[in-house]
């Protein structure tokens, strides 16, 4: 047996034993898996590598932490409840349009930041109460948020896996908008209508109003929405007019808006809110640190190369199967990891089969779907948390949208040579 395969089995085995048998947190199980892999490869306990892997996602960790502070602040200020009431009363007569608009709202922060977690934590948390109040069951609502956030992550202008794949073959990140919109928008519309529409027919607005807080919006008026508007304005302006707008950075923007929320609605204890936000988010942050260590050791020991070379040796049909299964499956560790580990070699293999930019865009889309894969499942876990469930029931409702997304991506991949016009 190849030593790299042995290392891989040791890493996965220890991870699964830790997580499923010993009931350790995913993050700790990943660290143990990483250490086991290093030991089997004869690397001892490579502290420098573990430390380096741990800090890989420090920028993402800052974004998630501050986004969570923002979410808690607007929840406690009453802004979310007021926004829910506003959207439902304006759009309840056209439920399909209302659902599609809500889906686009979920996608928006992901499109701007390239992070499904940011999308779930910001817009997802705003939209979730509306979905629940119009009668969509919790698990389905969670699935809408999870898939919507991933569609936002994959949609242009910022698609980080696409950038990673393009960077890996020295391809400029230009011309990706067309193919990415063509895959993300239909998938998003299908998902929200498939999961939600049947619960939204014949909505009784008077009944809905009983569950909505119609007073908080009236009491504080427009100023209640200032933190949300400020967030949108700052996120858009720093990217749309970067020469004029100072570069604040996404974490600082979230933090500023959270501070503003303290003064624009219901009074609340900011210290307690902050502690609650960090308590909720620390397990996810730890997971990211564990993922970093895990991939670092996979690379150090050569197990990463082994996985990729094994996949490349399977031939074209098996390669498409690997693209549909292993690539999103790698998202269980990290969707960014899937893009850099598998996306680049898969693109190299498929370069001659069609339009190169379209192929890179579609591979990145499939990588993004990995954010649904447990145990990491960043988008899925947070979506489940927002609707007050464990991830498993939410995941069940993600299966059909996931399969449809994969099927559409494969159809596009097979016909990418006809889609070159989208990239010009």
């Amino acid at each position, binding site marked *: 047996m190849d030593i790299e395969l042995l290392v891989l089995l040791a890493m996965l085995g220890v991870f699964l034993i830790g997580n499923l048998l010993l009931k350790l947190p995913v993050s700790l199980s990943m660290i143990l898996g990483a250490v086991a892999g290093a030991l089997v490869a004869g690397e001892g306990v490579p502290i420098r590598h573990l430390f380096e892997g741990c800090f890989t996602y420090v920028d993402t960790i800052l974004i998630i932490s501050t986004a969570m502070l923002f979410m808690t602040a607007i929840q406690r200020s009453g802004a979310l409840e007021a926004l829910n009431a506003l959207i439902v009363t304006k759009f309840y007569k056209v439920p399909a349009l209302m659902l599609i608009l809500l889906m686009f709202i979920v996608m928006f922060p992901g499109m701007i930041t390239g992070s499904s977690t940011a999308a779930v934590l910001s817009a997802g948390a705003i939209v979730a109460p509306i979905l629940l109040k119009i009668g969509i069951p919790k698990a389905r609502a969670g699935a809408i948020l999870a898939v919507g956030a991933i569609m936002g992550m994959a949609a242009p202008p910022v698609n980080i896996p696409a950038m990673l794949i393009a960077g890996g073959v020295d391809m400029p990140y230009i011309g990706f908008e067309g193919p990415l919109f063509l895959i993300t928008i239909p998938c998003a519309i299908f998902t929200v209508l498939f999961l939600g529409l049947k619960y939204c027919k014949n909505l009784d607005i008077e009944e809905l109003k009983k569950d909505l807080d119609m007073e908080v919006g009236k009491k504080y008026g427009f100023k209640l929405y200032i933190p949300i508007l400020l967030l949108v304005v700052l996120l858009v302006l720093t990217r749309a007019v970067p020469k004029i707008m100072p570069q604040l950075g996404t974490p600082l923007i979230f933090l500023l808006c959270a501070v503003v929320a303290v003064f624009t609605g219901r009074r609340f204890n900011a210290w307690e809110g902050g502690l609650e936000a960090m308590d909720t988010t620390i397990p996810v942050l730890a997971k990211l640190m564990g993922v970093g260590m895990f991939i670092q050791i996979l*690379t150090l020991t*050569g197990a990463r190369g082994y996985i990729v070379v094994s996949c490349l040796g399977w031939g074209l049909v098996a390669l498409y199967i690997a693209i549909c299964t292993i690539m999103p499956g790698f998202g269980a560790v990290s969707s960014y990891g899937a893009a850099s580990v598998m996306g680049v070699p898969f693109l190299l293999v498929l370069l001659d089969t069609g339009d190169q930019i379209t192929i890179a865009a579609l591979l990145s889309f499939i990588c993004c779907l990995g954010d649904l894969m447990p145990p990491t499942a960043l988008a899925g876990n947070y979506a489940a948390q927002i609707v007050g469930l464990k991830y498993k029931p939410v995941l069940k409702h993600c299966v059909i949208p996931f399969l449809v997304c994969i099927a559409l991506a494969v159809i596009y991949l097979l016909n990418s040579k006809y889609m070159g016009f989208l990239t010009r």
Partner: protein
Amino acid sequence: MKKYSYLWKNILVLAVALLFAAVAAHDFLAMRTPEPVAASDGLTRVAKLSEYCANLKGTVGDEEIYMFDSGVPGGTFLVLGGTHPNESAGMMAAIAMAENIEVTAGRVFIMPWTNTSGFTHTSPLDGMQDLFTITLKDGSTRTFRVGNRLTNPVDQWPDRNYYEGTSGRKLVGTETAEIRNVNRLYPGNENGVLTEQVCAGIKNLIDRENVSIVMDMHEGSPEFFYLDTTMAHERALNVASLMAMDMGMDGLDMKAELSGQTSYGLSHRSLGDNTNALMTLMETYNPSMGPLHGKMDDDLIINGNEPNYYQAHLDGYIYYRVKENGIPLIERIARHIVCITKLKDAYNLYYPEAPIEFTCLGSYDDMMKLGLEGVFKPVK
């Protein structure tokens, strides 16, 4: 009581974290010690980059420039190694040149660590070696660093969401990290971020010292399309083409490619456009940089033997002709030095009025016979 138990648990976790950090810090701090250079007798002086960009004084970017002046009037050749510290052959070839060069006309300037900050850390998720060691003929050893292609975020952070360099290059999305890439920020900005200051220092060096020709030494992963290729600014294309033909006659694959018109911020484009120097950049194969590589160790760095890439090449996924036994570091160093030597010869044919003459380690075959152990000198 429960409160105290909670407190002690937290203190314990913090203590363990600090212990891990201290051990890791020891390794990372070791990367801050530059490699000693046993410079050849022809060394005139070791300048500092801050002489050309005052803002670099006292910073990690205030790097050494090894100056070899023959005393005979002529042109000036600037050799840049370590622009991307993970591309080991660049830095190694520069050090080998500084230790063995003999200049007889004009001047040669050598910068082995163009991005000094990049040598102080490694790239997360790439599982890179931090150091590797070679044994010399006399049994002594020398240790070299493998760094990161970008400036250390400890020296320059955070990366901006948007950046437009002095070249007009715009960095957005994940490309924003390239604001720490020396080879994206030329011609630089004396008042900009550290990496821009380094670029500005190099640009000023070229201007003030009237540098005639520049070679920026790089390596690429096996997936990269421009291996064994020299990119040349349009004013340098004739010289680079002649060099490529000359190398070809020696049985060494080499292509000369015109620098992309929109390769803004890269040395061959933006220094070519903004200085009088003839700008060139060369790439060799480095399997430790690609996603298919096997176990990361000294063997991979020094011997460059990666069966995964050989197999991928046989299967038709890698266009570059990967050899069964790999391409060792000495071969890549020799290729860089021969390329520079032949570039000098080609330059002299086109610009006889400002000649540059030097010898360094002989031919490609000579260097292959010497091996790493013979190319580098023992140091105290």
